[in-house]
């Protein structure tokens, strides 16, 4: 085939670019270590298990809590926990930036949990910044429209 040379060069270029993260000096970096609060006892499951499976665990928890009302989790060692991200997990893993975000940012994972759920420490500044005007607070009491009859847009 007459294009042999061009094809071979193209393939070599592509292979080189595709494998850049493996051979480019400085591209290889160790995985950042999440930082945990000192003096903690144990997590829901072992660290190896959680490293590999915490996403599946949380997914199963949220289905179980929301769809079955089942909030009690018993781990492999028989110890019970409440199935709650905020109250069980984030109680110990309380610094989202140092613990959760470090690995997530490194592997470009963007869990959308935080669009709705509150991360620890997030609330105080956010509440101050986003807490609404006096008009909003009055509206929240439900007394804004007398009689409550909707009047159309």
């Amino acid at each position, binding site marked *: 085939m007459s294009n042999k040379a061009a094809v071979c060069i193209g393939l070599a270029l592509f292979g080189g670019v595709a494998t850049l993260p493996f051979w480019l000096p400085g591209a290889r970096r160790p995985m950042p270590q999440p930082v945990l609060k000192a003096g903690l006892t144990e997590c829901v499951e072992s660290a190896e298990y959680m490293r590999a499976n915490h996403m599946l665990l949380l997914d199963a928890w949220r289905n179980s809590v929301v769809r079955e009302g089942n909030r009690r989790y018993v781990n492999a060692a028989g110890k019970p926990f409440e199935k709650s991200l905020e109250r069980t997990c984030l109680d110990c893993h309380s610094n989202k930036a140092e613990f959760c975000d470090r690995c997530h940012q490194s592997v470009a994972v963007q869990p959308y949990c935080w669009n709705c759920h509150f991360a620890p420490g997030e609330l105080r500044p956010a509440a101050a910044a986003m807490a609404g005007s006096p008009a909003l607070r009055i509206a929240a*009491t439900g007394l804004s429209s007398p009689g409550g009859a909707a009047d159309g847009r």
Partner: protein
Amino acid sequence: MDADRRKFLIGLGSAALFGVGAAAGLTRVGAAEAPAGEAAQGAIRWGMLVDMTRCAEGCADCIAACNAKHNIPQFGNTKDEIKWIWKQDFAQVFPNGNPFPSARQTAGPVLTLCNHCANPPCVRVCPTQATFKRADGIVEMDFHRCIGCRFCMAACPYGSRSFNWRDPRPFIPAFDPDYPTREAGVVEKCNFCSERLDRGQRPACVEACKAQALVFGNLNDPGSELRGQLRARVTLQRKPELGTQPSVFYAFEPRHD
């Protein structure tokens, strides 16, 4: 392109597609889905009586409590509005066309919320079971699964449901960290405070009512206070002819026992 090469590429493409599709189908992650549709005839069916003889006109304690505890946004317009519990005129809540309602019925606007029907049309139409009936009768929302098709909003004959037409967070007056906010694109409504019931607490509106106008209890227990009230006075359901079997009852007259 000659026929052999074409056939090879088509075969390769089809195999790749088929392989990816099969892999995706066979390795679905997550627990097998338990049927969340029909609630088992369990011991509990939560219900509520709204005692309008005790509900004070102009009082909105229950509404404020619900709004605060569930991070309900305040948009200030009826287009984007989200409301789980609110008050509206008697003729609109009970549109039976009676031109001469009693003075008690029209003493003030009537409290309105999701009826948590035993035969809910919204659950029937939801294509993903994002809204479903729990075993205890509560019609619940799974915000993680909702695709935002708003079919349930069309199906609800009571107008109980709201949609997040935009991001609600900037419009929430003050955050309650114990309950998540929602995202733009999902439907929401009163959930009978299922998260509080699961912790042994009463719904926020019931607890906030200083006049004790909201009686919450187990409709399946003939000895519950709620059932006692229903026996002792004339109560109304909204649009009972539709067969939805609401779990919310209204009383406009005092007890007759």
